[in-house]
Each structure stands twice: as C-alpha cells, then as structure tokens.
C-alpha cells in the first residue's frame, strides 16, 4: 500500500501529511510533483493544505489546470481513494470532483484553532474506524472554508449520506454545518479540518489518526 502527497508550488501542508503517513501511520508515502502525469502506483492520494498556486482569484482555481489533476481525476474514476484536506478540498470542488464551493468564512477572517466534529457517517472508506455520533477534535486553519451549494445539491448530499463530518460549533458559516463530504461513489473525501495535524502525540491530540487508520483499513480490506 502506498500513499502519494501532491505538491503544488505553494502547498504547505504537504510535509505534515507526509510525516503523518510515514512516521505516525508507518505506511509508504511519496511526494508527487504537480506536473506528474502518472500516479497509478498509489492507492491513496492526499491533496494537502496550503495555497496551491497562491490561491489568487479563488482558492484552488488554478490548481485544476495542473497535469496531476488530470491524473487524479482518472484515479478517482477508478474508485481509488482521494482525500483533499483544506486547500485540497477547495481544489476538489474547483475541479468538479466534489459538488459545491468553499467561500470566505462568514466572519471574513482567517480562523485557526481546534474544531469539534460530529461523525455523521461511519460507513465510508475514511471513517470506518469511527463510531457515528462520535466527536473528533481536529485543527482547522482556513480563510475560505464556508461550504455553499444549491439546495438540490444539499438535498442530494443528505439523501446519499455524503455529509460525513459536521461542525459542532460552526464558525465559518458552512451550510448544514458541513466540515467534510464524500462524492457519490464514496471514494473521494474533501474536508476543511486537518487530520494530519492531529496524529503526533507531542502535539497533544491524536484524533486525526482515525481518518488515516480508516483509509488504511479500507485499503487493506481490499474493498
């Protein structure tokens, strides 16, 4: 099993994701440069946080043009796992791999802190090690994490149980308190909070591990 962490020119949580997988989860992981076209060897792709191409105009807007995103689309179509964290979530929506959009936090400020998340669906490749209704404490750090979508889209997300994580205390203004959603097939997750920042015990919080443990269990189970 091997993970790949995509590196855009101004990714900056690439290193955090890399160390979380390698040192904390003990799995194989490589960095993948944004101009890479071949990513077949990876089972799980992590699109990390940061500011991709500066995030000018809109977060994640330019990243959808990169060569590697073509490969990520193909990877996702094959049903393989993709997790987009923070900027990664923004990129996935801009690239059309997840519905909706992320706009500026309702208080118009960057928010850094720790969010309490509700686990809404534990029957996914990313949450199978969690129990429904469980609370996760996961760091957040974003200026544009306010999830918006048209009513029909929201309805569909609810009906299909695609809303996986919600905020207990919704600070950014997301519709339906959405913190993380999966695509219809359930193999692509986008979430604003940073599970990779909550893996190392020295940092005082290891709640994020369960997300990666779920992915690893899913991949091992070969489902």
């Amino acid at each position: 099993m091997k993970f790949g962490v995509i590196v855009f020119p101004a990714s900056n949580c690439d290193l955090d994701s890399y160390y979380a997988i390698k040192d904390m989860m003990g799995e194989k992981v490589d960095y993948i440069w944004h101009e890479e076209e071949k990513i077949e060897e990876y089972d799980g792709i992590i699109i990390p946080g940061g500011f991709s191409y500066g995030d000018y105009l809109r977060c994640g807007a330019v990243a959808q043009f990169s060569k590697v995103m073509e490969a990520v689309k193909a990877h996702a179509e094959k049903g393989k796992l993709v997790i987009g964290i923070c900027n990664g979530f923004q990129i996935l929506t801009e690239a059309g791999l997840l519905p909706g959009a992320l706009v500026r936090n309702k208080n118009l400020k960057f928010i850094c802190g720790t969010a309490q998340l509700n686990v809404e669906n534990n029957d996914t490749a990313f949450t199978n090690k969690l129990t429904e209704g469980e609370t996760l404490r996961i760091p957040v750090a974003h200026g544009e994490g306010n999830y918006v979508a048209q009513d029909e889209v929201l309805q569909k997300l609810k009906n299909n149980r695609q809303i996986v994580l919600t905020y207990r205390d919704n600070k950014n203004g997301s519709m339906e308190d959405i913190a993380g959603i999966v695509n219809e097939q359930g193999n692509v997750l986008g979430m604003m909070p940073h599970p990779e920042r909550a893996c190392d015990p020295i940092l005082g919080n290891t709640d994020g591990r369960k997300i990666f443990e779920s992915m690893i269990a899913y991949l091992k189970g070969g489902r």
Partner: protein
Amino acid sequence: MNLYEELGLKKEEYERVVELLGREPNELELNMYGVMWSEHCSYKHSRALFKHFPTTGKRVLQGPGENAGIIDIGDNMAVAMKIESHNHPSAVEPYQGAATGVGGIIRDIFAMGARPVALLNSLRFGELENSERVQYLLDGVVEGISGYGNCMGIPTVGGETFFNKSYEGNPLVNAMCVGVIEHDKIHRASAKGVGNPVMYIGASTGRDGVGGASFASVELTEESEEKRSAVQVGDPFMEKLLLEASLELLDTDAIVGIQDLGAAGLTSAVCETATRGEGGMDVDISRIPRRESDMHPIEVMISESQERMLLIVRKGQEETVNRIVGKWGLHSKVIGKVTDDGRLRVRDGEEVLADMPAESLDSSGAPKYYKDYQEPKHMKESRCEDLTGIPQPKDLNQTFMELLRAPNIASKEWIYNQYDHMVRTSTVIKPGSDAAVIRIRGTEKGIALTTDCNSRLCYLNPREGSKIAVAEAARNLVAAGAKPAAITDGLNFGSPEKPERFYEFRESVLGLSEACRELDTPVISGNVSFYNETDKAAIYPTPIVGMVGVLEDVRKHMTLDFKEEGNVIMLLGE
C-alpha cells in the same frame, strides 16, 4: 535645495562623497550614496554603540553582520533568527506594510540557507478605544501578517501587542523569523571568486519603494512622479517559490553567495556582497527584468520591489541555476560578474553609468556619528513623584475586572487565531503561553521563542527597562522549560539627532548589553528603527527583545495552565 539634500545627505556627507570618488558624483552615483548612507542602511547613528553588545558565546556560529544570526543547538543543527521593523510602511498602508515586513524578514532567514520554521511579531499602536484609525491600523496589520505568513506555510507562533498614546501617529510593526539549518549548509552573502556570474531571480523590478525622502532627481518628469510609488505590495506566492527554489539551489554546490534585495534594493545587495567578497562587482542594468519599460537607471538601482534575490554562482553552473529555478516557475538572469578591483560598476550595455569604490558605499565608507545625549526632563520628574498619595481602589473586584478588560491585558486570542500557528506540525506550545515551543524534527530537541518589551518602563528608565525586557524574555523561556540562548533586538526609537532621544537609545543599548552579558544570551542580530515620531511626540523607547532558548528534550516542556485540582501553588522569588 541641492540634490544631495533632497537625497537626505548633509553638506559634509556630500563633501565626503566627492573626496572618496576624487570627483563630483553623477546623479545615479549620488542616489546610490543617498540610499546607502541613509540611517536605515548605514546605521550611522547607532553603529558606534554596537561594540557594547556581547556577540560571542559558545553557541554563536554567526553574530551580527550577516542577513541573520545563527546559534548552535547541537546534533549538527543550528537556529537562525532576526527581527526587522516595518513601521513607516505600515503606518501608510497597514496590510501591505505588515505583509511586506514579514516577507522581508523571511528572506533574510532563507538567504542564510535556513528553512524558516516560525514567525513572531511585536506590535504597538495608539489607544484602541474610540479610535477608528487605530482599529483600522490594527486590523490591517494583523490581516497583512496573517495573509503573508499563512500563505508561506510558516507558523506565526508568538508576539506581543501593546497600546499606548505615544504610538498614536507612529505604530510599530516588528517581525521576527526563525529558521533551522544544518551546520554545513550555512551560506553567507558574499561575492567570492573573480569572474563568477551574478544572477537575479524572483519578481521583476518595478517602481515600488522608489520614493520617500531618499529619492529625487531633476531628470524625472512629472509623469514618472505619478507612476512611482512608495507602497510595496507583497506577493507571498512568489516568495514561496523563491524560498523553495533558493533552498534547493543551496543544496547544490552552484551557489557561492546569496543575498535578498531589501532596503535600497539592488544597490545595497551588490554593494554588500561585493565588499564581503572579492571587493568588486560589475552589473549591467539592461539585463534586469523590469515591470515597466520606461524605467530610469536610478529607479532600477534603488527600487525596493519585493521578492527578489541575488545569487553569486560558481562559473559554469548557470544552467543548474536555470534548471532549478525553472522548476519552480521562476526565471533567472545573469546580470553581472564578480571582480577584484574594488570598484562597483553599473553599466547599461556598454555604457558605464556609475563607477565607485564599493567599500565607500558600505559601512566602512559611510559616516558614523556619536550624537550628544541628555537625560529627558520627564525622568527626573518621575523619579521625584510621590506615590504615597495614590488611593487604594475601593472595589477590588471591579478593579480586577477592569484590568482584565483593558486592551493591554485582555487575551490576544482574536489576533493569534487569525495566524496559522500549527502548520508544519511542530508547534508544541501554541500562542497563549509564556513562550512558544517548536520541536526540531529529527532530534529530541525543541526551541522556545518569545518577544518582549515593556516600553512604559523603558520610558521611565531606558536602561533598567531594557534590562527588564531581557529578563522578562528569559523568564518566559524558562517557564516553558528552555534554557535562554541568544537574542535578536529590534530597537525602535525617536530621532537620534535629538539629545533626549539619543540618550534613550544609548541607555537602552547599555542596559541590553549588561543584561545579555549577565544571562549569557549574546546579541546575534537585530535592527534599528529611528525617527519614530510625529510633530507631536516621539514614541516611548521600545527595544524589543526576541529571544530563543533550547530544550534538550522537547517532551519536557511546560505550559502555564493549572493542570489538576489539588495541585499546590507556590510563588518563587522575592
């Protein structure tokens, strides 16, 4: 007014230029002297006092004199740090002023070859209550720091924010950056190796920062007057590319020297690298990438456009540079070469536009003053003040609540929660404690960081206040479980040409020196910002102490919160 006066030079200084050159300078040359001999670049009013600072110690690998100071923390690892002010730009345009301040200090750190791992900032504003202006400045500065630092992926882990009337017209924005480096990777800003090419990477050169007191030229038309701008706009994306490209370049053996383009732009960068290296340099400004086509050579040479670096490259390795820089989407350009004739030559193609002894521009040529000083009147008055007449508060509960509500005491969480303080997953103690702690990956160690200065005490007694600032910083580090190791100092004062202000500066330097010697925390880098005053008043003397300490075992850090019911509370000290 004479041209030299418009450029901020005094008559004696102009005469000195003529003497050093052996002729009258031309306009470009005079402009270059003007910026290099400005207070900001030459430290002409402060240099004479630096000899008091303790600058050596068993940990010190690089003291003052380079882009940043460096200390050894063991395990072949070292820590680079420096503080820098961006006060006046932030007063004009708070967002961009603060953002470019952060950008500048980050470049100083990676120019040493170090990976920036933490940012801190020390802010001073006028009274917050009932002042829309102060609120606007504060919001803008905090957003600027957040906008730039967050995008760079460098956690902002600490700082301080104080409000006091003396900063009303002249806020202070000091930014500090800390980097980590392996011993053998340390790079210096020197142009070694005759014939080595000098290369330029990063943003193209515009008219940014061409303005202010040090710029004037009769040749420039009114139209260009309008085009020039003192406001620099930060581009953190470009800086991130520069950072990654520079660190990757410094991992090869292609780079002999590296210098960021900061104050006084190209002029300062070529001059400093030349004098620290073989002594001379020859640059062709027709090769400088420009944002606008009709720029005057003076504008090109003194522009302070952000996000640019100068590289001295081993001859024949230009392609290595092009390849790595290209990978990060940047362009590189050879703009000149290293010489050993001691001359700084600026050409436009074949035509020589300026030709002067490189050293004459730098601190060895620049004037050095030791101004008169005199104790401020208010100090005597306050010493005689009778404190016994101050009544006890009637309602202690209410007073307590009022104190907690005062902006200077109230929690600053709303500020530091706008900064990403967790990125790089190494922030072991987050903002909100006495000092921040960062673990050093690959070792068991950690470093603790803090900035401190109570300027009210420095106003009452600059020498004692400065000692207290050092002591407070040290206590903060100790409270986090670290052993204090070194400081970087951000010295913010009024005009050194006024005896009372120079007294404050001098006393502060002496106080800092004494305390640093006592605590064995040498001064490894710093910055001086003078003329922080308006026609009404000068700021309180504000010598900001940025201190780093070392934790041999980062797991043994300590935070300030009460841990469990029943724990005993003790008071140490007098």
